[in-house]
């Protein structure tokens, strides 16, 4: 492969959550005849992704598709059940908290809810100083303060407001401050978990612009989690479409929007309400998203897919490289019976 070394690489990542926990449950049934079936949520199944430096990989999907879980796995907030995560060539998913410390300065995360992502009992100054001090204990007080002021200016928040508490700011301003906090340690990689979906339309544009600016100025690489396809089209260089914890389609943004291949991607694209379209022509899907508790044996999308056949029921499709570079996991695409 001639491609540059990816900054982030995840291989065959899996995450399962046990549903039956609780001390007594396991303790009580060990000796008895009544053994409870172990139920698990299969949040992420065999996901492999790569992010090259300077890219913005968007992960899209509906609720329960595991997109946030992927983000949290990469950020080290969860431990994977199987699979590997590599950052700049080094494996990171099996490291202890202390061993991860150097990585924390390189990889940061922005969260969805600006009302919850800042500690309400800390002033902005305290919230921004804390990570700077923690990661750079050698800095003098003045230097720390300068750093905080610099970061605040760069996100468009007046440094003279540093003494205020989060509740004195609006949602958009808080999200700017949350971004500032992530930027205090000068990261090179940012995981953004639905950073604008809790904001109003006019504020969304402000925050998106800010993130684009930061990308250009600081050379950031993004992993951007969202359910909003119009944002993907605008922000992402690459897109991964997730359904029930599996990647359906992975390709360049332009390719995906021009020529979506997976039936789910097509349905998803057609479902976005368009502004200047009198006759919406959306592809209606059968039924609803199944719960990820007992995964179907075959293609996860089979139960809702109009093109499903018996093979789809029994055999899980593998991602196949398409002529235009997209990776698509679909038997129908593989057998070329979609557009026929």
């Amino acid at each position: 492969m001639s491609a540059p070394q990816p900054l982030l690489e995840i291989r065959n990542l899996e995450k399962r959550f046990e549903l039956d926990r609780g001390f007594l449950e396991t303790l009580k049934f060990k000796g008895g005849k009544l053994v409870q079936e172990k139920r698990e949520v299969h949040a992420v199944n065999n996901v492999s992704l790569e992010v090259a430096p300077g890219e913005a990989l968007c992960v899209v999907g509906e609720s329960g598709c595991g997109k946030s879980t992927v983000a949290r796995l990469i950020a080290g907030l969860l431990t994977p059940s199987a699979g590997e995560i590599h950052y700049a060539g080094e494996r990171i998913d099996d490291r202890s908290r202390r061993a991860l410390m150097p990585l924390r300065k390189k990889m940061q995360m922005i969260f969805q809810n600006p009302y919850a992502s800042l500690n309400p009992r800390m002033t902005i100054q305290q919230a921004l100083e804390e990570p700077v001090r923690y990661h750079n204990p050698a800095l003098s007080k003045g230097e720390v303060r300068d750093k905080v002021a610099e970061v605040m200016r760069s996100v468009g928040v007046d440094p003279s407001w540093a003494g205020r508490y989060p509740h004195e700011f609006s949602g958009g301003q808080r999200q700017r401050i949350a971004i500032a906090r992530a930027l205090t340690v000068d990261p090179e990689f940012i995981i953004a978990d639905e950073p604008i979906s809790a904001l109003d339309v006019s504020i969304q544009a402000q925050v998106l612009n800010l993130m684009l600016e930061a990308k250009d100025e600081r050379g950031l690489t993004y992993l951007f989690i969202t359910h909003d396809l119009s944002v993907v089209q605008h922000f992402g260089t690459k897109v991964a479409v997730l359904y029930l914890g599996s990647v359906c389609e992975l390709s360049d943004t332009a390719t995906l929007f021009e020529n979506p291949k997976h039936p789910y991607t097509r349905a998803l694209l057609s479902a976005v309400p368009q502004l200047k379209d009198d006759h919406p022509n959306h592809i209606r899907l059968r039924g609803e998203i199944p719960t990820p508790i007992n995964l179907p044996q075959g293609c996860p999308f089979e139960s809702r897919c109009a093109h499903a056949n018996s093979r789809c029921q029994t055999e899980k499709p593998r991602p196949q490289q398409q002529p235009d570079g997209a990776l698509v996991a679909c038997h129908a695409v593989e057998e070329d019976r979609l557009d026929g």
Partner: protein
Amino acid sequence: MSLLSVRDLSVKFAMRDNTVTALNQISFDLCKGERLGIVGESGAGKSITGFALMNLLSRPGYIDSGKIQFLGEDITEMSEAKMRSIRGNQMAMIFQDPMVTLNPVLTIGQQMVETLQAHRKLSKSEAEQIAIVKLREVYIPSPEERLNQYPHELSGGMRQRIIIAIALLLDPQLIIADEPTTALDVTIQADIMELLLELCESNKVGLILITHDLGVVSQMTERTLVMYAGRIIEAGRTREIINDPQHPYTQGLINALPQQTKPGQRLKQIPGNMPSLTAIPRGCPFSPRCEYAQDHCLTEAPKPVQYTHVEVACHEVNRLHSDKAEEMIG
């Protein structure tokens, strides 16, 4: 014929030591079978409008002044008993989050039957028959079984369908839908919207669709009101508002959408934030964020005026329009 006619409706909230105005003298009309969209960002007062129409404002909110004529009668002057006979009967409401709208300890059947029995003398089995018919209309599979299920046994999309079925139970004249799909996933959202559109058209039901999503409004409604800080700032036919918005805020809102800009380019953002209800600026509420604002915008609130094909509340709409024309020529 006019189904609903709202005149100078003001809603206020009694706060710690003063009152704040949540709705400032809004007026609009709705014809029978017409679909109207109310768009705005959070805090614009769109949900409050919906609840005010049902006369269901929860404390400390109250209707301060104005008239709401529904089928020729003023809701603001109705007795509670009379109002109750209209709610759910001639005027139904669909709430935002289907996960918390249905009562968790009552079965779907109980919640449908009670609605019917509240307005008509029906036996339980008669009511259940109607319920099953309506469930079928919203494409709920095996409706007979659903009647005995509890809400937690059903998915969000299914629950929202049931809520739509409940809204249709008594063949209302008007449905008020308050962000009916915001809590749902994109693919489910499109299904629900299509269903709602189909049912409103086939049953000739008037619809007030409250949403923040311009795309939804564009696909669902015939007319649109754009709200900002408790006022209607632009009103007119949906097509025209979307294609040729007149108010600087509406323009900004549409231009801020990522679809309107080339990928990777800076989006056209509106600076600043929506004012909180306690600090609405004097004059035009949008003036601090408006690039066209003049001195009189800061002191004098604009009245809605007819401009070309829409009604706009903006002092500078003429100038704005000529600017735009220049842009197009140049």
